[in-house]
């Protein structure tokens, strides 16, 4: 990255613009041809991001020269694999301004949410120190209508298992949370509040710190879903306000198969395990077992060390770009996309039309053309988008959409690609719309 401070018209003030050309050269997949010989325009990073060569190399190097089961074996490779794995933990902790012992590796953000939800139902029988995690009849778990199914279904299930009641914040027509009834929803009955830190549909970034402060006043725990925030904006857990943060590696330039649960140390110390087995135990006897402290308590089985190492390399790559600069780049692309798409007749954007507290997911519905059909035409042009409800069915219902087409942006996307998206949508309208009116 250059230290050049020159601003292009679309870059907001504050940071040097990303050198997108140089970034694109780091991503081998962006060089491939797709349908019809078109070059790839990848606007689906919200589903999974592409991987720079340094991440691929880090994973490959682990397997090539260090591969062994971490935390096992009395041999050199075992030691090196363990060091690589624990260094990755420390690197990811630094990315979030956390302590290494607060970073628990999971296979995904989804598993990380489930880890907390199952720890809470296990708390009923886990002794007095786990008491604050226990929920039952009369207790409430508070979520929002804007959640991805991964931060919704596990809480529904927790309530079904324990007899607790699920409540939720609704969303306003612009996709922002309706916090007007926070006083009624956050009460002494609330045991946990789970809220997205950035919507995967509308891009909305709710005021997590504000919600957390109200929840903490009532003694509730707070979990933030960072699957869409950690890859795209600077996240500092010491300022986030939440007690837990979950995210996945594959959406932030890292490998698939690795996710993270961050939790405040004193909570993790008291929290019972979810998945049990090898490497999380202290002593095992036939009559019963005791468990290691966190993070090991929550990492049963041989860990995904190569994936952790790949994720650490992704953190290096993102920090070299600078997370504020990444966020500014995406804000500029998002503003451009909102402007370009708003000019298309019959198109409605699901979510705010400004970039204030809003990330780079632009979902939309088009009069008379189903998202599958929009996506098909875009695919024909080499443009990869997501279609459907994006694992946020209740949010779509709340916004009056059966499904939508979604473009999401990342470090390698360009303003030309945003224009190509707008052109592609017009072509879809022409393909379906004009033919339709001609036949009518």
């Amino acid at each position: 990255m250059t230290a050049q401070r020159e601003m292009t018209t679309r870059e907001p003030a504050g940071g040097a613009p990303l050198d997108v050309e140089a970034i694109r050269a780091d991503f081998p997949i962006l060089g491939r041809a797709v349908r019809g010989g078109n070059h790839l325009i990848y606007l689906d990073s919200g589903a999974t991001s592409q991987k720079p060569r340094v991440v691929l190399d880090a994973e490959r190097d682990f397997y090539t020269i260090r591969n062994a089961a971490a935390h096992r074996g009395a041999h050199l490779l075992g030691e090196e694999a363990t060091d690589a794995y624990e260094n990755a933990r420390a690197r990811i902790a630094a990315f979030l301004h956390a302590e290494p012992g607060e970073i628990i590796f999971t296979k995904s953000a989804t598993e990380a949410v489930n880890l907390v939800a199952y720890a809470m139902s296990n708390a009923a029988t886990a002794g007095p120190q786990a008491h604050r995690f226990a929920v039952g009849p009369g207790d409430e778990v508070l979520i929002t209508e804007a959640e991805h199914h991964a931060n919704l279904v596990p809480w529904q299930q927790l309530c079904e298992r324990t007899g607790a009641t699920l409540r939720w914040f609704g969303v306003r027509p612009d996709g922002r949370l309706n916090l007007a009834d926070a006083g009624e929803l956050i009460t002494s009955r609330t045991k946990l509040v789970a809220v997205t830190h950035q919507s995967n549909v509308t891009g909305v970034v709710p005021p997590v710190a504000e919600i957390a402060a109200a929840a903490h006043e009532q003694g509730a725990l707070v979990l933030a879903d960072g699957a869409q925030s950690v890859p795209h904006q600077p996240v500092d857990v010491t300022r986030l306000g939440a007690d837990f943060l979950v995210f996945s590696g594959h959406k932030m330039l890292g490998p698939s198969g690795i996710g993270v649960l961050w939790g405040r140390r004193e909570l993790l110390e008291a929290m019972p395990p979810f998945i049990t087995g090898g490497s999380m135990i202290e002593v095992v006897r036939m009559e019963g077992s005791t468990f290691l402290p966190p993070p090991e308590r929550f990492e049963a089985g041989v860990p995904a060390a190569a994936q952790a190492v790949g994720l650490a390399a992704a953190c290096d790559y993102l920090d070299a770009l600078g997370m504020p600069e990444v966020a500014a780049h995406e804000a500029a692309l998002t503003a451009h996309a909102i402007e370009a798409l708003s000019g298309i007749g019959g198109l409605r954007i699901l979510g705010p039309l400004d970039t204030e507290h809003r990330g780079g997911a632009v979902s939309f519905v088009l009069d008379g053309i189903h998202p599958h059909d929009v996506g098909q035409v875009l695919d024909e042009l080499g443009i990869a988008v997501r279609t459907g409800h994006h694992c946020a069915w209740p949010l779509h219902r709340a916004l009056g959409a059966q499904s939508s087409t979604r473009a999401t942006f990342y470090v390698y996307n360009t303003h030309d690609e945003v224009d190509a998206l707008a052109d592609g949508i017009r072509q879809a309208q022409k393909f379906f719309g004009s033919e339709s009116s001609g036949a009518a």
Partner: protein
Amino acid sequence: MELESMYQEIILEHYRRPLHAGLREPFDAQVQHVNPTCGDEVTLRVTLKDADGEPVLADVSYETLGCSISQASASVMADMIIGKTVGEAMAISEEFLRLMQSRGTAEPDESVLGDAVAFEGVSKYPARIKCALLSWMAWKDATARALDECAGAAPAVMRTGAGPDGDREQE
């Protein structure tokens, strides 16, 4: 452009002017099937009548919420099978399923499939196969239920593939 191989004129025509659309009375069975990946829905009713001891599809009525492929498929299906015996319609359904699972390699039998041969291009796009199969799966399910309703027991073949997910057929 490859797009035309999927969106053949016959498909677009059925999408713009769907045949036999809307839910009608009376009916023997009604089902609702959903494609869980995209939320597309079809509600479908089947009315049977007896023709010399053989069940005939007196009416198939439906309402769809979905893409052009799923809407056109419902229209083509209803137009082809209304008035056919359940056995004849089942044979068409099997041929259509074979076509959709062919990844573009099958040579569809137009004498069996009629307008439904137009979906050959869709079979090259795995993500869209479920769209084309949604109403066929709903029809099989509804027919099995209608036969249960009318005759007390349906032939075993009627019970396969009766679910919200077209891929179940492969299990």
